[in-house]
């Protein structure tokens, strides 16, 4: 008697060859795993359908997201074969997202990393070097500091996007009230002005900080110190990127200056300078150019009291120098369409368009226009002049000028770790846990050890 089957119609008497139950049991999870780890959506794959490139950035907020989406929409409207889709996460999640997606085989075609991570990303084989013609275009079109930030070991890995140089923000009103004619130009003037402007109440609460020293995060704490170090002619990392160069005369001078300012009461590192400066409780701060946009919206009419000057040099007549940090757009080594990705980046970063409201014939790249629209700069000085000449904020000029002499932030493998170690040591110096000598020694030992591991 033939057993009655509850479901289904007639079945073949024998199993189909090559698909036993065991094979099926093995194949199912493998197929699920493979589909989960597959490359990101890159079109339907049918012949004739467009290629879809994915771009992962930290432009997650309304203003930044919209600023990037504009040119991307323009590209998608004018290009049939290659389309671009943007995805964004908050900056704090960006590196983690790169890691997780890359490990899962879901890495985006185009990445928008902070240049500090470039050494780490290159060592991990995530970033693809720029093809020769693109590298040449980047070297020709951008300032040296921007190119340096987008390079690792002398090799260019992407198009620099926003570039941040450091300068001295000062409150004109507070300086005027303290009898200072203008912003300090040397460290001596900086120290004098800081002491003259600083005020405390009888309980020791800070009413006005002379020079604000930020302990907000790695970037702000280390950024201001490295800007002063560069201004004194020093470097954080040696030319070959394998050891730290902070234990030098310039390094000692910076740590001495900051230590004096703190111990003599002209600086109070505990105060959040990013809140205190707009409230008129900090006279001067060394910070990056992105802050101008935030200050304008925070301070309203009070922004007219804000001035920006180059980072003071150690002695009158010294050559100006400061720190430069930035982001870049590069192509993932895992991308199946690197040529198309580089083409899109060339179009976004070098293709020029007319500037609204500028002098006749003035042009700028889409990326430069995008950055200026959100209060930032790019490493293309010609673009910046054209764009800032159209009634831009005069406080952005010193940041633009600094592109000519700024020193790129070290981005060797282990740079993020080195930066964290430097921050810890700076804070230990400011809080009296370490002397200047100990800080120099400990920083050198810890950073050298870390960098030796990273290479």
């Amino acid at each position, binding site marked *: 008697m033939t057993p009655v089957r509850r479901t289904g119609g007639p079945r073949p008497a024998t199993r189909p060859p090559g698909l036993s139950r065991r094979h099926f049991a093995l194949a199912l999870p493998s197929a699920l795993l493979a589909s989960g780890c597959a490359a990101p959506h890159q079109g339907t794959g049918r012949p004739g359908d467009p290629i879809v490139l994915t771009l992962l950035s930290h432009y997650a907020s309304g203003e930044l997201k919209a600023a990037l989406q504009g040119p991307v929409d323009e590209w998608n409207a004018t290009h049939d074969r290659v389309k671009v889709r943007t995805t964004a996460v908050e900056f704090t999640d960006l590196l983690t997202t790169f890691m997780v997606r890359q490990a899962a085989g879901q890495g985006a075609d185009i990445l928008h990393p902070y240049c500090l991570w470039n050494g780490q990303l290159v060592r991990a084989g995530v970033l693809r070097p720029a093809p020769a013609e693109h590298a040449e275009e980047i070297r020709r079109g951008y300032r040296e500091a921007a190119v340096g930030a987008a390079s690792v070991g002398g090799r260019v890995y992407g198009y620099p996007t926003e570039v941040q140089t450091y300068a001295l923000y000062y409150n004109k009103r507070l300086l005027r009230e303290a009898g200072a004619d203008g912003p300090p130009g040397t460290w001596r003037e900086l120290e004098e002005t800081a002491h003259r402007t600083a005020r405390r109440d009888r309980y020791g609460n800070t009413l006005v900080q002379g020079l604000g020293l930020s302990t907000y995060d790695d970037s702000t704490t280390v950024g201001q110190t490295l800007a002063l170090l560069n201004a004194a002619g020093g470097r954080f990392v040696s030319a070959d990127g394998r050891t730290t160069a902070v234990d030098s005369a310039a390094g000692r001078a910076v740590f001495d200056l900051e230590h004096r300012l703190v111990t003599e009461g002209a600086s109070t*590192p505990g105060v959040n300078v990013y809140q205190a400066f707009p409230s008129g409780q900090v006279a001067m701060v060394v910070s990056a150019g992105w802050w101008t946009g935030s200050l304008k919206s925070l301070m309203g009419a009070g922004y007219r009291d804000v001035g920006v000057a180059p980072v003071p040099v150690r002695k009158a007549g010294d050559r100006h120098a400061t720190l430069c940090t930035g982001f870049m757009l590069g192509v993932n080594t895992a991308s199946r369409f690197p040529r198309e990705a580089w083409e899109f980046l060339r179009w976004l970063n070098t293709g020029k368009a007319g500037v609204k409201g500028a002098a006749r014939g003035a042009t700028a790249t889409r990326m430069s226009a995008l950055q200026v629209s959100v209060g930032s700069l790019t490493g293309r000085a010609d673009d910046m002049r054209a764009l800032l000449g159209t009634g831009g904020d005069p406080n952005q000029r010193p940041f633009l000028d600094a592109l000519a002499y700024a020193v790129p932030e070290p981005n060797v493998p282990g740079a*993020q770790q080195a930066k964290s170690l430097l*921050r810890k040591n700076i804070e*230990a110096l400011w*809080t009296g846990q370490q002397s200047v000598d100990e800080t120099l020694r400990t920083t050198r030992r810890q950073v050298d050890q870390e960098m030796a591991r990273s290479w």
Partner: protein
Amino acid sequence: MVNTLAPETTRRAPHSRRAAVGAVDGRGRARRRQTVVAYLFLAPALLFFAVFLILPLGFALLLSLSRWTGFDLGDIDPVGLDNFTGLLADGSTFLTPVLTNTLLFALGTVALALAGSVLVATCIDKLRFQGLWRTLYFLPIVTTVVAVGNVWKYMYEPGGLVNGVLNALGLGSVAFLQDPDTALPAVVVVQAWASVGSAILVLTAGLKSIPGSYYEAAALDGAGPGTVFRRITLPLLRPSLLFVCVTQFLTGLQSFALIIVMTKGGPGDATNVAALEMYRQAFSHGDWGTASAAAFVLFAVVLAVTLAQLWFFRRTGEDA
């Protein structure tokens, strides 16, 4: 009779043996079927544990013995015990101050939370509207750590509420979170405040389970409140105290959210703890090997501390 029956028995014997064997086979099949069904019912839970516990644990163990930057699974490079020796090497900041801070943070939190919760629970036990009081003290538990951390951060700041009170008393301001000597105790106070609610719930339940006859007998004997608390309440509360102590210590050893909100581990390394260091090594610095090795060291510490607590309470007559 016997003889007449004997052939019948002999004839029946093979049949009954077959029947017996068949019954045994049937029972075996049924048992096997039951076993399969049981495993099928267990499968979701087993799969869950395999995917979310065994696999990550095995992967973490592999990473702790390797170098991996977090990007490409093909780049996992075995390095033996290098990550562990690096963590425990002379000059490494992991043992001092990171692990020391972790233990001090957990110890301080347990001590403060335990003392506070015993005091508050005893007071609540004597009040009306006990549910209301318990709810009020439980509120910090249901408040997000970010909100708690930020509110306390502002209260600690120079010019904040705490310094305002000190100034009103004629005292100078203290930079609680900026001074390396006060930063860790300041965060410990907040962690203890935030965790006291759950301890109160457990302890009030423990207090309810103490028979009233003991207190009546003590009152008849003329025992004062201090003696009653020391000789009756505390000893009979020991099971609850053990539970609170162990769970709070485990939470303290592994927590870092409050620290990242309030101090980010600073100034310097003054409030840096093991979990925060692991997070930074893995997600900021891409050093998954060191982070995983640190996780296993922390696991060993947690295990040792928990076993020590259990041993201590058992020795004093309390079973977990």
